[in-house]
């Protein structure tokens, strides 16, 4: 029986939300293909989470318990996955569409004769092969793509593409990996790691709700208001390119064509006109709420609910209203 691998994305010693979503997607695929589901945890720390991974669908857990595999290191992770593929019978691999895993997947695809579909908003099975849905041309079109017959299937899913749902699986069989790295795999060295995490606020890729600020904020200080709104509803904070270009918020929070793609349940855009470049990064949000004083801003055309008004009046009032209703 073939295996469907799920590359577990983890941080601070625990699986990220996307990993449980990937396992849920894998369960749906395996129900049709009959593949077994094997999670792959590269780096230390899998032991405490084996049961959770099993509950979400992992029947087997490949674990390379080594600092060599930990963090943003590409080639060691490629070589670990290559070993699993070469030693076993792997039909496909699901991974989170992040900067890092895209590097890993592309090198692995070259080594193991695979094909890659990245940034999928859904996956299904058609004719025994995985079919991935993804947006192309900045979200103007939605395409469905497969990997050619006979090639290793590699599919990258966006965070929040699939809702994580527990199954009824028990603890997976844990298989320890022993990987001997090539000389090339250790040539790139991580000298230091600079974390820029904003307290307890969730990252925009993981957050169920994202509050984003744009040019209409007028100044950097406007982002303090965005953060206050975000903290009131447990949201992540993002920015349009105009705002990051102005230096009001760090570049890595930029949403859009040249930044990051997000798929939250709720997106609240403040002072963002909704140019096509920004929409390319957020229009898969399930609910879109702009607050903008320009009634002709293009973002209102894709809004589920919108407020035409001065964000500096509306947002503070909204924060108070939400606190009141939550009984804070």
């Amino acid at each position, binding site marked *: 029986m073939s295996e469907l691998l799920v590359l577990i994305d983890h941080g601070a010693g625990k699986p990220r939300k996307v990993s449980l979503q990937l396992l849920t997607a894998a369960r749906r695929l395996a129900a049709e293909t009959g593949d077994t589901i094997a999670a792959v945890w590269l780096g230390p720390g899998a032991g405490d989470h084996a049961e959770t991974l099993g509950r979400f669908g992992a029947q087997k857990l490949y674990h390379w318990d080594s600092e060599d595999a930990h963090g943003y290191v590409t080639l060691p992770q490629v070589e670990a996955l290559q070993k699993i593929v070469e030693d076993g019978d792997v039909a496909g691999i699901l991974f989170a569409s992040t*900067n890092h895993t895209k590097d890993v997947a592309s090198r692995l695809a070259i080594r193991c004769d695979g*094909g*890659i579909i990245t*940034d999928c908003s859904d996956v299904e099975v058609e004719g025994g092969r995985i079919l991935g849905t993804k947006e192309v041309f900045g979200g103007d079109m939605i395409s469905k793509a497969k990997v050619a017959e006979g090639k290793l299937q590699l599919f990258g899913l966006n965070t929040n593409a699939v809702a994580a749902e527990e199954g009824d699986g028990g603890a997976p069989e844990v298989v320890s990996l022993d990987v001997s790295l090539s000389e090339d795999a250790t040539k790139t060295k991580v000298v230091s790691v600079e974390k820029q995490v904003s307290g307890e606020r969730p990252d925009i890729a993981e957050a169920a709700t994202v509050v984003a600020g744009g040019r209409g904020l007028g100044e950097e200080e406007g982002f303090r208001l965005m953060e206050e709104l975000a903290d009131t*509803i447990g949201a992540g904070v993002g920015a349009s390119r105009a705002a990051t270009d102005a230096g009001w918020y760090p570049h890595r929070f930029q949403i859009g064509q040249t930044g990051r793609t997000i798929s939250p349940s709720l997106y609240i855009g403040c002072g963002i006109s909704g140019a096509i470049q920004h929409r*390319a990064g957020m229009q898969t949000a399930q609910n*879109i709420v702009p607050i903008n004083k320009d009634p002709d801003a293009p973002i209102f055309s894709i809004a*589920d609910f919108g407020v*035409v*008004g001065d964000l500096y009046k509306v947002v503070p009032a909204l924060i108070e209203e939400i606190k009141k209703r939550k009984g804070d």
Partner: protein
Amino acid sequence: MKIVVPVKRVPDTAGEKKLSDDMTSDRESVEAVLNPLDEWSIETALQLKEAGKADEIVALCIGPEAAQATVRKALSYGLDAAVQVTDEGVHGSDALGIARILAKALEDLDADLVIFGSQSTDARTCIVPAAVAELLNRQALTFARHIEIDGETVTVHREHEEGWDVVESSLPAIVSVVEAINEPRYPSFKGIMAAKSKPLDTKSLADIGVDPSEVGLANAAAQIQDAQPRPPKEAGTIVEDDGSGSVGASALADWLQEKKFI
């Protein structure tokens, strides 16, 4: 040191896009531009040359004859020369196929450093730089927000979801850059005029030794089965605030509550 900057011709984001019957992009139907992300890689290369770290910068483009305009645009920023791979056999190649063509072209160019934009605005896969590095057996330092060259060592600040890692490797290497790395310049009038006469070497797939069975639509590992325009969205509720903030806030809070967000 020689730097190669791969550049891509992409459909203008603001234009209407269409697919041809074979599910490849109908590039005739929309205005084409230099991939916006390539402006940052070009700027990175220019700054390294101005700092005395590089002697020569070559643009590399895969695309139809019409992509020559894109190549000239890249040259207008101040690059020294360009190579364009133009061949019917390229049509329909997926990202890994394009990586194979780029890798072959790069073998001939013998670059110490290859600097990509982190993605193209049409495909947005981000997978080409690492795939090229794999094919050339080189180190890849991708998503760089800062780069330094010291002798044979390249150090980058590699951006990720939680911040960045400081990563170093030896040359030759492949790098991709994100927007945070610099502020791209505009081409000068002098640069635009000079670009018209700069060396542009046009090559076929056979010239660079690409096996036709590894590229093109028929050999793409990623195969598009179907593509449709995004369905139009139903009009949402738009509320006009009265200037106090409270009308808009109250209506929005009602909606958020109804949808169980609060």
